[in-house]
Every structure is written in structure tokens, then in C-alpha cells.
């Protein structure tokens, strides 16, 4: 098997994560899986429905019984998908005869009922192609640690089937119009339900199986893959293969350099430092030589027996302390006053009461009454405190009304201490810097041929309106695009559209010096009044 070609990340996962990976695979390859599914399983279902017309209750049962066959279809697609091979409709259909010969007969008869790990062991049948005693032994090895998880997967998938099945009923029940007067329980639980009711129920069961069975198979499959990854070290194999390639390339490179002695020295230097090669390779020649010298100095000390092992082969810091001296220093530090001083604490405590037992026995006869009084007292206290809490809650609601009212009305709350900026990208936004009638002033500018200023005035006016009247919290840091995005929530759609157009025109004329078409500019000039001029404008919008 070509592990390198595998399209799923190989690492040693927890069994749960392995199952999740399978669920993710189904989502990723849903199209291929369901193509094959509806080409093979749906016809079978339809055939069963037609053939068993007289005994409709048998249809779901038999459909359930044939599940091992569907499992094989799903596994066929998945086993190709993990190698990035698509499965076309033709391939899926062509594979069916082969799938029938993967132990299907025994799994549909003798082994149908007592298998709680069906999806986990399926790859042994189908992909490894083992049979008989060898298969059982192989399954035994694989199941050693994974079996509980495979069983849980089966149980949870059964649960999921029930959930989806009940969910479908619930959905139908929720969506039934009330005036139809439809007695659902009566329809479902009558002794002899109408034929169409049985058919709908069987169809629902088909949908349920279609949703859950691929997940079940995929979860078992990835659990199996994970188990083999652990047993056979697949994740290690991939890295080792890459390592071998890299080293071979390294060796070839060194040979090609034809500078064998230098290369050998260099390698030796790298080794002693024990650091990743690329880092070393980038460093200068001088350092390499230094490292070589260091190594030649250190090597003799390694050979000497009885020498302190402090500097032996150490890669971190040649000047670091020996273990003994370090221990001495640490003890000295710990002995200092800052560490480990003691403190005496005096505190009042209740003495255990000696006459406790006697008292309760004396109270014995009145216990019931006392208990009732206590309950009454507690009830009064609790009632009082609950009313108090309610009052407090109302008070808090009033005090913090700003916060939650904003959530309801959708108007953006201004940050405390927010002050609208005087200018935005160089445009003065102060109210007194703008003329009284902006639209008229802009039109005058336009007619005087000062097109850029006219558009600038319109845009400035719109921004000023947003900041001062709409309460939009604009900052110096916002760009034209930011403002457009912010305004989307604050103003109505037609106004926003107008603003978008105006922004576009302004950007073109301001930054690209490109004049707008006169019809567009005339329209902008004409509509400004309705969209951004004072209270009238707002009312109109």
C-alpha cells in the first residue's frame, strides 16, 4: 500500500477522534457515496417494496436485514476516496458483483445478528479479503484495544437512527396544518394501517438508513485505519520514508560536491551540535570552523573515563554548572529567607458541643412541630428574598436599559465617551463647516464646473448626516468601505444604495480623477435631498 498517497492525515488518534474522522470523510465525499448508494441501495429498496406489496410491514425489516450489503458499497467508495480516487456511477455499479463475493452470504445469514462491531471488522472481510480462522485471528488482534469503541459506535449509531426516525415523525407532526384534523397516532398504530401509511413509513426508514449507515461504516473504517496505524506504525513509516529520501539526497549532494573531506568535517560539526541541519547550513564559514574546533576540543574529554560528565556531548551550553555545584547553588537559594518561612496564625473556632446528642433526644416529641415551624420560617424568608431578587432584577433592567434596548431596536449604541470625528479622510464633518442647503450648494458648484468639489460636498454632507443624525459611530480609522458596511445596518436599503453609488462616484473623482457621467451626477444631486436632508428626508425614507 502506498501510504504516501493517502489523503488523510496519519497520526495516532484517540479512538473517538478516529470515528470523527470517518464522519468528516462522509461529509467530504458525500457526493460519491450517495451516488453509489442511490444506484445500488435504492433499487433494492424499491424492489422490496414492490415484491412485498402484500406484507408491507416486512419491507423495513428486510431492508434492515440487508444492511451488510450497503456497508460494502459505502466502504468501496470510501476505500478509494482516501486515496483521492473518485468513484463514478459506472464504477460503483461495476463493483457490485465483486462486493457480493466478500463474505456477504455468511454475514447475511449466520453472522447477521450477533455482530456489534460489524463496521469495524468489515475492512478485514472486504479489503484484506481474509476468511475463516485467519480472519477471526486477525479480527481478534485488531479488536484488542478498539473493541469497546467499535461497540459504542454501533450503539450510538442505533441511537442516531432512532433520533432521526423520531425526528422525521416530529417534523411531519409539527408541519401538519391544525385544521386538517389528522389523527396521526390513530393512523400509525392501527392494527391494519392503510397501505400508503406503511409505504411512507418504509420510505422514512430508507431515509434514516441512508443518513446514518454511511456514517456507521465510515466511523468503523477510520477506527480500523487508526488501529492499524498504531499497530504498524504507519505515521512513523511516512516520516521515515521521507527521512530516507532526504538523507539519500544529502549524500548524493555531498558526493557531487567532490569535496569529501570538507563535507565530512562539516557533517561531523553538525552532528556534535545536534541541531537541525538547515539552520546550520545557513551559518557562515567562520562559525563552522569554530564548531569544528570546539568539537576537536571536546572529543578527548568524552573519551576520558571518570571525568565529570558535565561537558560531555552537551549541546546547550558548555559553561553550565556541573550537577553537584548546581545542587549546592539551588540549596543555597532555597535556604534564603524568601523561601519556605513559617507563619503562625491564630483563629477562633467553635468547640464541638458535647451535649448535642442529649438535646435532640429531648426535643424528640416536639420534632414534628418544630420542623413545621422551621419550614414555615424558611418559606417566608425565601418568598421575601425571591421578591427582593425580582425587584432587584427590575431595577437592573431599568438602570441598564440602554444596553438591552439597543438589542431590540437594532440601533447601534454609542460607546461611552464617543465623540464624532471632526474630519474623515480629510473631509471636514463639523456641522458649521457645511452650508445650510447642501444639495443646492452642490448643484451650484457643479454648474460652475467645479465637479470634484460638488461631489465632495455631497459626500461630506451624507457623512455628516450619518454621524450627527443617525448616530453612527464612525472613527478616523474607518475607510469609505468600512463606513458603507457600517451604514448598512443603520439606514434603509434605498438610502444605503444611494450612499453606495455616491461613495463610488466620489472615490472615482477624488482618487482617479474620473468624472461621473452627467446623468448619474444629476441623479445624485437631485436625490440627495430625499435621502440625507434633515428630518423631512428621514420621514420620506
Amino acid at each position: 500500500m502506498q501510504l504516501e498517497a493517502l489523503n488523510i492525515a496519519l497520526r495516532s488518534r484517540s479512538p473517538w477522534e478516529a470515528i470523527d474522522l470517518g464522519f468528516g470523510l462522509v461529509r467530504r465525499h458525500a457526493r460519491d457515496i450517495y451516488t453509489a448508494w442511490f444506484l445500488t441501495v435504492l433499487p433494492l429498496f424499491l424492489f422490496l417494496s414492490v415484491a412485498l406489496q402484500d406484507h408491507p410491514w416486512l419491507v423495513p425489516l428486510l431492508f434492515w436485514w440487508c444492511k451488510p450489503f450497503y456497508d460494502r458499497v459505502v466502504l468501496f467508495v470510501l476505500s478509494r476516496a482516501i486515496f483521492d480516487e473518485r468513484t463514478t456511477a459506472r464504477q460503483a455499479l461495476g463493483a457490485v458483483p465483486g462486493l457480493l463475493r466478500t463474505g456477504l452470504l455468511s454475514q447475511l445469514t449466520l453472522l447477521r445478528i450477533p455482530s456489534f462491531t460489524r463496521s469495524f471488522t468489515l475492512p478485514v472481510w472486504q479489503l484484506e479479503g481474509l476468511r475463516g480462522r485467519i480472519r477471526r485471528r486477525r479480527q481478534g488482534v485488531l479488536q484488542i484495544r478498539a473493541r469497546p469503541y467499535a461497540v459504542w459506535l454501533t450503539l450510538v449509531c442505533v441511537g442516531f437512527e432512532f433520533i432521526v426516525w423520531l425526528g422525521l415523525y416530529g417534523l411531519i407532526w409539527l408541519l401538519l396544518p391544525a385544521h386538517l384534523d389528522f389523527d396521526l397516532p390513530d393512523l400509525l398504530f392501527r392494527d391494519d394501517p392503510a397501505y400508503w401509511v406503511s409505504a411512507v413509513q418504509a420510505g422514512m426508514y430508507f431515509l434514516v438508513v441512508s443518513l446514518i449507515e454511511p456514517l456507521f461504516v465510515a466511523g468503523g473504517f477510520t477506527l480500523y485505519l487508526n488501529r492499524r496505524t498504531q499497530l504498524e506504525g504507519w505515521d512513523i513509516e511516512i516520516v521515515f520514508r521521507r527521512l530516507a529520501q532526504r538523507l539519500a539526497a544529502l549524500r548524493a549532494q555531498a558526493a557531487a560536491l567532490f569535496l569529501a573531506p570538507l563535507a565530512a568535517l562539516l557533517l561531523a560539526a553538525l552532528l556534535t551540535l545536534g541541531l537541525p541541519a538547515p539552520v546550520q547550513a545557513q551559518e557562515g564559514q567562520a562559525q563552522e570552523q569554530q564548531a569544528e574546533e570546539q568539537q576537536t576540543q571536546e572529543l578527548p574529554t568524552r573519551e576520558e573515563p571518570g571525568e565529570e560528565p558535565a561537558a560531555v556531548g552537551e549541546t546547550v551550553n558548555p559553561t553550565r554548572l556541573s550537577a553537584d555545584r548546581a545542587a549546592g547553588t539551588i540549596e543555597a537559594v532555597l535556604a534564603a529567607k524568601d523561601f519556605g518561612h513559617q507563619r503562625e496564625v491564630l483563629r477562633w473556632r467553635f468547640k464541638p458541643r458535647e451535649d448535642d446528642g442529649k438535646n435532640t433526644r429531648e426535643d424528640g416529641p416536639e420534632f414534628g412541630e418544630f420542623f413545621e415551624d422551621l419550614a414555615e420560617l424558611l418559606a417566608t424568608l425565601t418568598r421575601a428574598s425571591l421578591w427582593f431578587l425580582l425587584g432587584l432584577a427590575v431595577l437592573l433592567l431599568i438602570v441598564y436599559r440602554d444596553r438591552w434596548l439597543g438589542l431590540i431596536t437594532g440601533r447601534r449604541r454609542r460607546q461611552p465617551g464617543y465623540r464624532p470625528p471632526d474630519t474623515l479622510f480629510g473631509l471636514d464633518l463639523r456641522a458649521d463647516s457645511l452650508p445650510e442647503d447642501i444639495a443646492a450648494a452642490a448643484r451650484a458648484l457643479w454648474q460652475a464646473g467645479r465637479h470634484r468639489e460638488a461631489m465632495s460636498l455631497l459626500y461630506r454632507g451624507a457623512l455628516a448626516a450619518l454621524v450627527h443624525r443617525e448616530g453612527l459611530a464612525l472613527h478616523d480609522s474607518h475607510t469609505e468601505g468600512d463606513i458603507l458596511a457600517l451604514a448598512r445596518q443603520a439606514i434603509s436599503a434605498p438610502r444605503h444604495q444611494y450612499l453606495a453609488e455616491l461613495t463610488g462616484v466620489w472615490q472615482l473623482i477624488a482618487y482617479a480623477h474620473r468624472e461621473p457621467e452627467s446623468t448619474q451626477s444629476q441623479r445624485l444631486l437631485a436625490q440627495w435631498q430625499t435621502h440625507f436632508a434633515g428630518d423631512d428626508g428621514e420621514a420620506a425614507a
Partner: protein
Amino acid sequence: MSATQRFDTRHTVETPEGIALGLATAGPVPRALAFVIDQLIRTGIYMALLYTLPLLGRFGVGILFILFFLTEWFYPVFFEVLNKGQTPGKAAMGLRVLNDDATPVNWGGAMTRNLLRVVDFLPLFYAFGLVSCLLNRDFKRLGDLVAGTVVVYVTKRDKALQLPEADPHTPPFALQLEEQQAVLGFAERSPRLTRERAEELAGLTGELVAGSAQPLAELQGMASWIAGRRAPNGRGNGSGNGNGGPVA
């Protein structure tokens, strides 16, 4: 040939400091089991309340209803905020709730995701939640989508390395980080691999063990060296000084 292109359920969140955190999002199976455990615990609480509080008369019944309400709605919220994102069920399954950006979940997030259980519950028994879980890349139910939270596996602390006894031996090449990890992982797992497979894997390293008669022992020795063990005397090149591996 980077591992990130391959399919995995783990996804990476980058912090503003440029640190990549790997989040292993948890799927519906362990989450369903965690839910079942929590539900059992809650049922236990209800039973206990039901058998004790009515003894206090009408006061007890009143308190009972209040406690029912609080347990039903705030049991997960309480634990998720105060117990590092873990309800008892999630803790048992090794799961934890986090915000999307890997920060701990706060009151707002926990409230949102748990109040929206009502929606996930529709039409019956969390069918919408299940379907949403299956369709989403991070296995989010609707409550998670709204609250911006995600359920992940708790990363277990690495246990101390359990390397087989081998004479420390300097690798003949400088190994990169990933390769060093692989060698360590191999040595740690080699006792559980079959002998033949372990030999085969060791042989796959090519140049690293080239010319060695016993690639497996050779590689275990390198792992020992990478783990920081050193021969007590001599260079310990794996030529059997008989003392077994010293522990640094």
C-alpha cells in the same frame, strides 16, 4: 508534502501572537455519550430532590420547582463556565467547550449555546442538533453556531517517555525536529510492534542505519540519545558495553 493538506478533523487557530493552536474538534458520537452521562446525572439529581424536598411541605415543593428549573437550564452553563468548559459528562469523555478562537467560554457564550438547546432539540430528541453537527466542518450544533463555540478534545499531557533500554548512540546525521519525534515515537512504540514490522520500519530510514547489522537496536539507541541519555563512559556507539542504558 505537508501534512496540512491532508484531511483531518483538527483545525488550527492562530493567536495574535502568531502561535498556532491545534483544536481537535469532537464529533457527534462522543458528544452524544457525554450528553447521556449528563442526563443520567441530572436524572439522579431530580430523583434526590423529588424524594427529599416534598417532606418540607408546600415550601419544599416550591423550592423543588425552582431547583428543577435551575438544574434543567443552568446545569451545563454552570459547569462549562466554572469547570474549564467541562460538564461532568464532557469531562468523562475528555471533551471541553471553547470559543472559536480557543479562548475559554464565558457566561454569555455558555448561556447562548445552552438556551439554544431548545432549537437543537427540535423536532424531537435533538434531531436538528444532530444534523447540524453532521453538516458542519467543526461538528457544531446550532447552539454552537450562534454562540461561536466549539467542542474539542482535551489535550492529554504527554507522559514521560518510556524508551526501551538501549545504549545511547549519536545519530550519524543531524535530524530535523519531525524526524527526531518520529525516531522517539518509533522507539517508544517498538515493543508493541511485531518484531518483523519494527525491523522493517527501522530499515526504512535508509542512510540513517545503513551498514548496521541491527537497524532496530541502532535506532533505539539513537532515540535514547535524542532523549538526552548519554553513555557513562566511552562514546557508547551501541557496540554493547553490557551495562544496559544509563539514565541521565
